[in-house]
């Protein structure tokens, strides 16, 4: 009786401030599959540029010693990650501004040295996570190498959400299970993911094998399967011109998906929409 409303109001405001802070936090996506050639880099490049075009401050980080992210944007490979981790240079010094709202921490063969340095460090699993904390970006996308090493684990630990691009063949789907097993092990050590998504790439809806594998992954993973990205030869040309899909062929089926009646099914534009749903909660 007669209890003051102030404490209740304070709690409410306190909760609201937490909510506001959470909305402004950086969301980190890792693009991972231990199997190579499944479209990790293309997916990371396309979605990063897509987010940047929607005015989200976006950072792409190349964790692969092949350094293909830089090449995808028509740049030379460079040891950005090496400078960040091994030479202790600040993030703002090592990023390259590559498009409006889009920065890159490039990689090259010196990324191999990063792995060696991390292996010798204390608290080695969370080094990347610490380096990317308070970066000021809206979204960070980590392009992971097709391997299972200390840098890969660092990427998975830094990530809030893991996107697993996969071709729809038996071997690639096995790679999905491997990543999920690794994520489960990391989860047992206390890391909490906000979620994961499986992204079928090189999708060809006319083959029976695609249907069989598609049925299988949707049966097992349900709503974790994102709309697939149709196969399109223009994706291969895009990298050769050092442009993103939004620049080189925004009307390709890989971007726009299949036309089914009046609706579009699949494609990077739809995937970008799913990603925004994750980011904006």
């Amino acid at each position, binding site marked *: 009786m007669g209890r003051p409303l102030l404490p209740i109001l304070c709690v409410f405001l306190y909760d609201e401030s937490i909510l506001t802070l959470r909305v402004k936090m950086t969301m980190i996506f890792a693009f991972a599959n231990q199997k190579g050639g499944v479209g990790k880099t293309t997916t990371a490049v396309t979605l990063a540029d897509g987010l940047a075009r929607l005015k989200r401050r976006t950072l792409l980080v190349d964790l692969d010693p092949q350094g293909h992210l830089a090449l995808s944007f028509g740049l030379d490979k460079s040891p950005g990650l090496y400078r960040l981790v091994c030479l202790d240079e600040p993030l703002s010094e090592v990023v390259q501004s590559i498009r409006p709202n889009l920065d890159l921490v490039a990689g090259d063969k010196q990324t191999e040295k990063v792995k060696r340095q991390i292996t010798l460090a204390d608290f080695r699993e969370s080094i990347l996570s610490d380096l990317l904390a308070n970066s000021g970006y809206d979204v960070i996308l980590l392009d992971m190498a097709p391997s299972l090493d200390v840098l890969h684990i660092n990427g998975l630990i830094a990530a809030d959400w893991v996107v697993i691009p996969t071709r729809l063949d038996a071997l690639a789907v096995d790679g999905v299970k491997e990543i999920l097993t690794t994520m489960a092990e990391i989860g047992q050590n206390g890391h909490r993911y906000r979620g994961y998504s499986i992204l079928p790439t090189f999708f060809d809806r006319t083959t*029976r094998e695609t*249907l069989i594998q598609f049925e299988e992954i949707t*049966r097992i993973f349900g709503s974790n399967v*994102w709309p697939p990205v149709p196969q399109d030869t223009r994706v291969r040309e895009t990298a050769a011109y050092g442009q993103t899909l939004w620049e080189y062929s925004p009307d390709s089926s890989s971007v726009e998906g299949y036309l089914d009646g009046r609706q579009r099914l699949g494609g990077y534009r739809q995937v970008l929409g799913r990603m925004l749903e994750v980011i904006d909660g």
Partner: protein
Amino acid sequence: MVEAKKVRRTTLDPAVADLLKGMQQKQTESQLPRREREKLSRERAKIQSRRDQRATYDLPRSIREGLRVLAEDLRLPASQLATLALARFLNEYQNGSIDLGQYKQPSRSPRYDWNLVFPEEIVFAGRRKKGS
């Protein structure tokens, strides 16, 4: 009491579900005899060719009913009668023989400036003719 059979439901992304359904349908069709496959293919092509001609409008029930009854009486497709009616209206409007001013009333909707409010003799015209 017989226990209802429990069916496990998987929730899918709507685009994934639509794509999967379409692929499964095509797969089923591919196992049909050639004649049936060709028939389905023709039907699909017919539906697709008509897709751009389709439109959805809110019409009073009496107008729809009047159109349906007239189409049945004349043994004509209702769509063709609707096309004729609309085409004649558009021609007459462009000729200046139809004045919408008498039906216009200001709209409170943010999307439209005006509403057309019809007198009963227009809205119920189809039904009356049928009755007479």
